[in-house]
């Protein structure tokens, strides 16, 4: 049970990371800055609970707001460029953030113990949950509550005009601009939203692993962040969740019985999935089919009643 709950924690946190990339991918922008926002959320909320003894909710909120703020700031210059240039610009942002925390040493004496980020030695003992008597089930509950809220919000976004505008920008920027859409504003808004989501994910990550250091936030993690929505498909938020379950739940944890071959299969499976489902696991056709099936089922239900 502990193990399963532990995996659920990981899946939840990575889903948030993936959803933050998903929001920006809707506008067609491939950003590797999400790991930078994730790091900001992790460090800020960690510092708040550890050094300033804040309540976890306040710390998570401020951490994610800070991440969103930096996303907003970096969005304006970065989103002027597209494609490969944006990839590289966002890599540089993430690396700058990572290296900032690599250099950050902020040791404070709290209740007789030196705590806080200690540059290379990492930021240890972010133990708010365990120290405040949270059972693992509570932690999982909190993480999944946040995941559900974010997923619902993103699902709802797809029901209103803002969502259509995001996808319009993602499909054809020129046509969107000619339809009166302020491209910069839409992209920066998506970046900011993504920053907030990644930030809260980072805060939850730091508190559920109790330790972060700059090695946690390397570009590899940013690659994972964009992998989830791409592998899952951009038609629906569920796709990202599916992809996280596929990668974290199935390939990384589920294939443990394969022993040494697990890590080799990892890359091969990704290649295979992309060749078989280039639009992602949950592509437009599948979504349409599921909708049809659902409506059939509900109609059938009505007929019976």
């Amino acid at each position, binding site marked *: 049970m502990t193990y399963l709950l532990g995996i659920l924690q990981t899946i939840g946190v990575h889903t948030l990371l993936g959803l933050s990339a998903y929001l920006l*991918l809707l506008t067609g922008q491939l950003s590797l800055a999400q790991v930078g926002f994730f790091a900001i959320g992790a460090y800020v909320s960690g510092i708040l609970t550890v050094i300033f003894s804040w309540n976890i909710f306040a710390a998570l909120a401020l951490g994610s707001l800070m991440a969103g703020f930096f996303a907003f700031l970096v969005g304006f210059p970065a989103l002027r*460029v597209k494609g*490969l240039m944006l990839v*590289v610009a966002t890599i540089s942002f993430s690396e*700058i953030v990572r290296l900032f925390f690599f250099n950050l040493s902020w040791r404070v004496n709290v209740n007789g113990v030196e705590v806080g980020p200690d540059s290379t030695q990492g930021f240890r003992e972010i133990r708010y949950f365990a120290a405040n008597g949270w059972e693992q089930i509570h932690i999982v509950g909190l993480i999944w509550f946040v995941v559900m809220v974010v997923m619902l919000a993103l699902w709802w976004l797809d029901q209103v005009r803002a969502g259509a505008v995001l996808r319009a920008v993602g499909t054809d920027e020129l046509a969107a601009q000619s339809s009166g859409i302020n491209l910069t504003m839409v992209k920066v808004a998506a970046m900011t939203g993504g920053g907030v989501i990644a930030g809260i994910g980072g805060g939850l990550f730091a508190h559920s692993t109790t330790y972060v250091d700059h090695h946690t936030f390397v570009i590899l993690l940013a690659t994972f962040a964009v992998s989830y929505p791409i592998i899952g498909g951009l038609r629906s938020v569920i796709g990202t969740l599916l992809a996280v379950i596929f990668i974290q739940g199935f390939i990384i944890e589920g294939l443990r019985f394969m022993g040494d071959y697990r890590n080799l299969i990892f890359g091969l499976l990704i290649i295979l999935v992309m060749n078989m489902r280039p639009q992602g696991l949950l592509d437009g056709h599948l979504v349409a089919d599921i909708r049809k099936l659902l409506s059939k089922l509900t109609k059938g239900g009505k007929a019976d009643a």
Partner: protein
Amino acid sequence: MNFDHIDIIQSLIDGVLFGSIYALIGLGFTLIFGAMHKLNLAYAASSIAGAYSGLMSLTIFGLPPLMAFIIGPIMSGVIGLILYFVCFRFMPRGNHLAPLMASIGALFFIDELIIHETSGSPMSFPAILPDAYFFLGEFGIRGDLLLVMGFSFILMAIVMLLLYRTKLGLGTRATSQQPVAALLCGIPIHRTNSATFILAGVLGGFAGCLLAASVGVLSPLLTLPLTVKGLIVTVIGGLGSIRGAIVAGFAVGAAESIFLLVRGVNERDIYVFLLLFLFLVLRPNGLFGTTINRD
């Protein structure tokens, strides 16, 4: 740290020389991106894999060290072709994300394959001109890197010749600019792309071997930094610009070296990335990129 103008010039020399490696990797990235407008993130990994296969062929078949520099590029070319078929060939044309993601999968796979074969241990790689270290007055110059620099110019010339003087090059350029039109004109687009991947692979394998030789040690730790450096060089040089990639390689090497001297290793990369970010925002077309205005 104390330093004077001599140190600055010296680290410029060091940086530009080591930048030759970045230039070579950037050249391959540029070639593929220029041809397909798609990103092959497994490229640096395939270069390192080429260097590894070169090295292993030495121990397995007992070949002379020089053969590593021949077998490495060949293997890397083969890997390039496989990558093309596995990650790009059968993907829908308009979809940029699927091949990108597949190439990330390939990056993971190649990396783990290397790690599986070597346990991830660093391996000694034969040096070229191990004793060539010149002192020019106050300045020290690495002979092997001078040679690498020479290679990067020669390879740039060869690639330019191939692109602008041969039928293959014509096909590559045509395919790059108007894939559909090129197809209609009877240019075998898949064969052209395959050739580009092989060529880029061979280049990358050569760069991988030269990198391994100049560091002296080969390790899977090299792939990620090399991937990032390759991307940086490609964009700074201007997408698809051959000479841009070369110049950008030197520039990135020099910037690293200078910031290392002036600000120390902990802050070195912060400044390099800050500079890169500003450069991208202020000059998004790169050093030699053409402005794309008409569709």
